[in-house]
Each structure stands twice: as C-alpha cells, then as structure tokens.
C-alpha cells in the first residue's frame, strides 16, 4: 500500500478516475467550465457591441484602434494554439524534446500576447481613453481585460506544466494533464477568434 502511494507519480493517470460516465471526470469538468465561460464571454461581447457607439465624450474606436498590432497578436495566439497541440502530440508519443520545444514556444506566445495587450492599454490611456471615459471604453476594457486575464492565467498554467515536463513528470500516461490545459488555451484562442473581427474590424469598418 505504502509502495503504491509512493509510486503515485509513475501510475497511469487514467487508473485514478473511474466514473459511471464514459469520459474522464477531469475532462468533463474542464468542458463544463468552458461551457460556463461561453456564457460569460457572450455577455461581455454583446455588451460591447451594444455600447460601441456610445462615445459622445472621449475617443471612439476609429481614434484609437490599430489593425497591425492586433493582427500580430491574433497571429501569435493562433500560432500558440498550433504549438500546444504539437506539444500534446509530443507528450502522447513520449517525445520529451518535442514536448519541451513546443510547450516553451506556447508559453512565449502567451507572454507576447499579454505584453501586446499591456502596451495597447497603455497606449489607449495616453490617447485619453481611460476605463471610465465613456461606455465604449468601459465595455472594451472589461471585455479585452478579462480575455487578457484568461491568457495570463493560461500562460502561468502552461508554465507550470513546462516546469513539470522539464523535470520529466509528464510521461505519455499523464498527457491528459497537458490536454486539459490545452483545452483551456484553445478556448481562450477561440474567444479571440470572435473578439478580433467583432471588436476591432467591425468597429473600424462602420
């Protein structure tokens, strides 16, 4: 018994999760969480769309938004989604070098995106668009701020997994740990896939 407890790390992950459902309980949990996040972001995106013309005072979308910077952020986030599936592929094959390389690139992309958003917010504040300037600004900062927070949390989560991978703690039997984090990361990417055209391109093209 003691030996079994001490040998916990080397036991296959799926032996720990017997449920009556034909799906791993942790995977079901992350999908349920993602489902609840859909409602959260749907509300925020709709609120932004409703308020985006409410900028009688202060700058509006055409005064502050810039396509090149946000496009580069979008590209980086799309790259990161590709990188994390390649890392998962490496973890499932037991290829540690592949796992470490792609996971490191994913974490770097996450850091770049958060940096891009911090730069963008700072630029907007210098342009005279603060959080309480108008309803457009409030809804914009709330939506993109919450998304940025999700990206930051995802980056930290993947960073801890990168540390585990570096120490050899993600064998193929524990690839599910990375798969769950990757699902969260893809969801964050999917939300940006909606935010980029709806918030930036459509607001500029009005």
């Amino acid at each position: 018994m003691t030996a079994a407890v001490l040998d916990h790390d080397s036991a296959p992950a799926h032996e720990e999760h017997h449920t009556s459902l034909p799906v791993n309980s942790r995977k079901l949990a992350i999908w349920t969480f993602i489902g609840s996040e859909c409602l959260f972001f749907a509300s925020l995106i709709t609120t932004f769309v409703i308020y985006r013309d409410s900028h009688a005072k202060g700058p509006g979308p055409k005064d502050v938004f810039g396509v090149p910077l946000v496009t580069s952020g979008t590209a980086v986030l799309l790259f990161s989604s590709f990188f994390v599936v390649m890392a998962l592929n490496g973890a499932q094959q037991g290829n540690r070098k592949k796992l470490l390389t792609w996971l490191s690139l994913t974490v770097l992309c996450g850091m770049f995106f958060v940096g891009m958003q911090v730069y963008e917010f700072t630029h907007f504040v210098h342009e005279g668009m603060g959080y309480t300037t108008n309803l457009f600004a409030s809804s914009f900062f709330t939506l993109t701020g919450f998304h940025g927070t999700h990206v930051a949390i995802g980056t930290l989560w993947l960073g801890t997994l990168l540390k585990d991978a570096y120490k050899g703690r993600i064998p193929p039997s524990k690839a599910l740990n990375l798969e769950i984090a990757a699902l969260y990361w893809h969801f964050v990417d999917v939300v940006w896939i909606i935010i980029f055209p709806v918030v930036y391109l459509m607001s500029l093209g009005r």
Partner: protein
Amino acid sequence: MTSDTAIVHDAHDIPHASAGKYVQIASVLFVLTALEVLLYEVCFGHLRASTGSFSASLAPHFVSVLLILSAMKFWFVAMFYMHLKFDIKILSWLFGFSLMIAFVVICALFVLFTYNRTLWWWNKPW
C-alpha cells in the same frame, strides 16, 4: 471491470490527429485570418481607393462575410485542436448546448437594450 477499463481507455488514450493534420489546420487558420484583414483593408482600409467599385460592392456584406470567416475558424479549432471530432460525443453535446444558451443570452441582451432604447432613450445620447 473490463468494460470500465475499456471505457476510460477509450476516453483519453485515443490518438487525436497526426502532426501533419495540425499543420494543415494551422495553415487554414492563417489563410482565414489573412482574408479577414484583407477584407477590412479592401472595404475600409488602405486598399479601398485602389479597388474602387469592387470595394463598394463588397462593403455591404462586410459584417456577414467576417462572421462566416470567424465561424469557420471557430469550427476548425473546436473540431481539430480541441479534438471534438475525435472525442466522445457527450463533449460535443455539452459544448453545443453551452453555445446554444450563449446564443439565447446574446439575443436576450439585444432585445432588452433595443426595447429600453426605444422606450426611454429614443433619439438621445446615452
């Protein structure tokens, strides 16, 4: 016991897709994003002047085309990168159900705000 093992094994030990497939999906996603930016540039950006009548004919469909391109990207990421295409169907139903409720929330918010605007803030800045 045997069936339990088989079920759990089935739940998360299935190889999802090959690395080559992931590269193909990444290429499609980048092409779609490039099309979104190109569409904006043609309709309202730097390419507007040089494209002339094409730009004018495309502009009314800008929002719908952009939404279709986004929906395609969404589908590719959900199906292949999030493995819904390969995973057990209950997860697809769970995600689909959430999206359906999200759509209802979106419609409800639009109706609520339009109704309020019509009643109390008609023709007034808000």
